């Protein structure tokens, strides 16, 4: 049964968690994915594991709120607390099934920019890649998360921090990385997939006006079968159980 009141970010967490399959090893970074993994492993994906580039490996939720992957509740009772090269080795040798990425800008092929954006004549410096470039290159698939704002959807990102698919439909032909590239984009208004390397609309969040939402993109977003039109659903609302868990993991709504 769906709850009646939830925040857009709670829905994003629920939608992101749904992208983790049972048995997956998930590469988790900052912000919402911190909550999404805990939700997934507590519900439909009990045998999933999370790896964090700080060196942490976990098989269950933290017993306390975490601002960052290195907060003590995330280290306490972890499976392993090791170093980054151990985690990046798993990623590079192909043992990470899914990785989460944020972004200030995304283009039609899932290229992400978290390094520097243009605002009129000025360039604004952002924090940079962190592990995003590595996850984008090497995770089995990636799930992108970002607030739904028109300025974030661009024909061409100002800087390719995290490479997506090739513009020519050759999939990941733009680089020799072992990863499968972007598989989903979850915004605060809709969830998108990728078909032949191009972003398509998969589901619209409840209560969102589809046409107005799509107008935020500078190109005509397709709805798939490869890559014309296909079915578009409504994103499931977070269940009561999910909301209860999300609010346990993030009691003050710091991230959500």
């Amino acid at each position, binding site marked *: 049964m769906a709850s009646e009141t939830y925040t857009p970010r709670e829905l994003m967490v629920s939608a992101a968690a749904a992208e983790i399959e049972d048995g997956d090893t998930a590469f988790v970074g*900052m912000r919402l994915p911190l909550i999404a993994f805990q939700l997934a492993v507590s519900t439909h994906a009990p045998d999933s594991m999370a790896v*964090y*580039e*700080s*060196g*942490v490996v976990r098989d269950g939720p933290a*017993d306390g709120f975490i*601002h*960052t*992957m*290195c*907060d*003590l509740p995330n*280290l*306490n*009772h972890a499976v392993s*607390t*090791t*170093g*980054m*090269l151990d985690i*990046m080795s798993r*990623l*590079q040798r192909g043992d990470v099934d899914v990785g989460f990425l944020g972004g200030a800008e995304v283009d039609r092929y899932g290229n992400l920019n978290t*390094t520097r954006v243009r605002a009129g004549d*000025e*360039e*604004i*410096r*952002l*924090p*940079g*890649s*962190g*592990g*995003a*470039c*590595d996850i*984008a*290159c*090497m995770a089995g698939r990636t799930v992108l998360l970002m607030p739904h704002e028109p300025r974030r959807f661009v024909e061409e990102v100002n*800087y*390719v*921090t*995290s*490479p997506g698919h090739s513009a020519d439909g050759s999939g990941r032909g*733009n*680089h*020799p*990385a*072992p990863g499968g590239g972007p598989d989903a984009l979850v915004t605060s208004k809709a969830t998108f997939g990728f078909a032949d390397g191009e972003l398509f609309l998969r589901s619209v969040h409840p209560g969102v006006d589809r046409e107005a939402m799509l107008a935020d993109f500078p190109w005509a977003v397709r709805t798939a079968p490869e890559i014309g039109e296909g079915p578009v659903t409504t994103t499931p609302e977070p269940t009561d159980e999910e909301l209860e868990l999300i609010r346990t993991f993030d009691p003050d709504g*710091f991230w959500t």
Partner: protein
Amino acid sequence: MSAEPAETLSDAVSRIPSGSSVATGLALEHAIPFAAGHELARQGTDDLTLIGPISDLLFDQLIGCGAVSRVRAAWVGNVSAGTGYRFREAVESDGIDVENHSNFSVALALRAGALGVPYLPTRSLLGSDVFAESDLFERGTDPFDGEEVALVPAIEPDWAIVHAQRASPEGDVHLWGNTGIVDPAVGAAENVLVTAEEVVEPAVIHSDPSRTAITREQVSAVVECPWGAHPSPVAGHYNRDNEYYLAYHGATDTQAAFDEWADEWVYGVEDREEYMERVDADLSITEPTVAAEVRYGQ
């Protein structure tokens, strides 16, 4: 070949000259050596090249203090709040030189240094502007199967600064919780400064040699520095002071505002003890987990 124990943090940090390249913040958001960083600023050490993976606030603070001319890092900001304003302003005004990395490329560059090889190959980077816009990396071809790889050259910092739970006076160090890229950075660095929650008898270290993360011949200075990583957390010692990160974010969006912040928290305190007197937060461990017993012997 052992560390020279330092009487005070000031003594230890004074061994790092202006113009040094310094790798720090190596365990990511865990155990960041803020105390040593603030002491660098107090001593007026400048023209530093900072090297690290993600930097949660410390790089931003040192940039704000005018100590930095170059950054080689993957991410500089405030993990609780996003932007680091001093970093952003310095880049946008060309106040510092930035070499963009991914976390893995910093890790590999330091691993190459630690391993004593000129470079290491990776399957990451290619296809990104981290690679394309950089003068640092090279493209290579695997001579065995013809696969394309990116080659990451070694980085050998003059100094690595590490905060740890306990160290012997000679410089043998026990470290637990996640370690990020502490290991490759310590191996690659010419000198290592260790600040420790506790300086302990060598027998404590010798009781558990598999816990030893750093050995003395890599260490130039070791100093006891309780709370030396605040506001970052230290496993077994204290939690993260998230409010401090948020307060910093709210208080440093202009240089003038930052200067005021630094007058209070960096320049306005003489040492870590005075600093901690100003911190108003209960970060103590309320649910200790004791590691299962391990024995050696013969």
